[in-house]
């Protein structure tokens, strides 16, 4: 049952965004549909603050995933925690099982979101099926987006232990909003001066949100590199995967220490019991 709610939300959002994009192009490459899901519109769009709203609209499915999964672990520390954890002989094992489920939920959510989006686009435009490139890009999309959402969902769960669920949500979403704002601010600067300068590019790589923009990445595979890397920036897809993976490992490890060592069961922050 747990996974069904993710699938339902993912399919609904996929259909919704598919309908929004219907009619935007008569002909498309399959790989372009994947890039659309990877925020291709916002790669060096030269926009301003109004882009924050547009990005947030596209970012909304991620927010919904984080809202749903944001209390998956934390809820066990609220009501019923005493009776739940008195039966948990190995809390480390419990935690590892929970975070594995969390990552699978994240991957499943983005698989279904994208499949339902692709399905709508298949019916609304003439699609050229460049399967080989599209599948590679699709795998990068799933891995990058699922790692990003796993990271922030786990962050939400862990911060909720200290600041309650609404505090955790505010912190997690606040950080992402900050990253998006930084991105919009600096990419505007980059848009004006990208030609011939490396400083701005280096700066952009430091903004975590940049890792979600698939279409300004580069790839070791020439065919894929020709489809993306529209600005000739050296920003390898593998680098984004590795950095997000490291971030996910660090937060998972930190969470294990927090959950193992801290007596959250002493106080129920949600209901005060």
């Amino acid at each position, binding site marked *: 049952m747990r996974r069904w709610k993710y699938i339902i939300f993912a399919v609904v959002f996929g259909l919704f965004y598919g309908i929004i994009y219907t009619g935007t192009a008569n002909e498309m490459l399959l790989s372009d549909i994947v890039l659309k899901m990877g925020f291709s519109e916002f790669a060096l769009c030269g926009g301003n603050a109004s882009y924050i709203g547009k990005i947030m609209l596209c970012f909304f499915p991620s927010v919904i995933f984080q809202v749903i999964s944001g209390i998956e672990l934390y809820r066990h520390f609220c009501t*019923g925690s005493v*009776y739940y954890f008195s*039966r*948990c002989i190995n809390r480390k094992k419990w935690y590892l099982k929970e975070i594995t489920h969390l990552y699978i939920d994240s991957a499943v959510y983005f698989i279904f979101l994208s499949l339902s989006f692709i399905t709508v686009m298949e019916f609304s435009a003439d699609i050229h099926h460049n399967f080989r490139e599209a599948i590679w890009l699709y795998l990068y999309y799933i891995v990058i987006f699922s790692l990003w959402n796993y990271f922030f969902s786990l962050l939400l769960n862990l911060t909720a232990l200290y600041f309650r669920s609404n505090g955790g949500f505010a912190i997690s979403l606040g950080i992402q909003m900050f990253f998006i704002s930084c991105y919009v601010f600096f990419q505007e600067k980059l848009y004006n001066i990208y030609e011939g300068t490396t400083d701005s590019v280096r700066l952009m790589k430091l903004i975590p949100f940049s890792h979600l923009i698939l279409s300004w990445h580069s790839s070791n595979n020439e065919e894929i590199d020709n489809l993306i890397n529209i600005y000739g920036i050296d920003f390898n897809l593998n680098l984004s995967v590795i950095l997000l993976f490291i971030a996910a490992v660090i937060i998972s490890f930190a969470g294990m220490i927090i959950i*193992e060592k801290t*007596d959250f069961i002493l106080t*129920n922050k949600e*209901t005060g*019991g």
Partner: protein
Amino acid sequence: MKLIAENIVKTIKKKIILDNISLELESGNIYGFVGRNGCGKTMLFRALSGLMHIDSGRITINGQVLHKDINVPPSIGLIIENAGLYNEFSGFKNLKLLADINKKISDTEITKAISDVGLDPNDKRPVRKYSLGMKQRLIIAQAIMESPDIIMLDEPTNALDERGVKLIRDIILREKERGALVLIASHNKEDIEILADRVYYMDGGKIVGDKDYE
């Protein structure tokens, strides 16, 4: 089953909550813990059940050191005052959710535990609609349903009417006969006198005395 606490100390916000407590408890006995509010009974149960880390000292259960070899005792039934269940679920679903963690018992045994405490296992109402007495009975059912080796009951007869109190006392005595190690903290002097084989008196986080009952 042997539960040994050696010189356990716990301080919260610079206040000593458990002050050098040592105990040696064996299965087949009921141990009562008596003391006024805030004397440390609930904190002692939290420490002995592994739900709270201690600052110093050692707790062993059959030779296994708590928080070193194990996180919680391998087989424990627990009632902690003010700790609730999942309010949105029915009584059966609550117990099922907890039983699924270790998968030691079947639905039949869950149903039996609910019936034993005088509740209807087929009651579909969410627990938030239960009276205080019904919630207390359900919490007792979760503590005993898996026939645990150790049972820690913090104020088990709270919110119960006279019939409920008698029923729960009978259950506790039955669990003792089964060979469980039972710990009870209660304000109710009668509970302790009727049930306990030995009573520990607590004050200011210390054990200040003990008494054996025939």
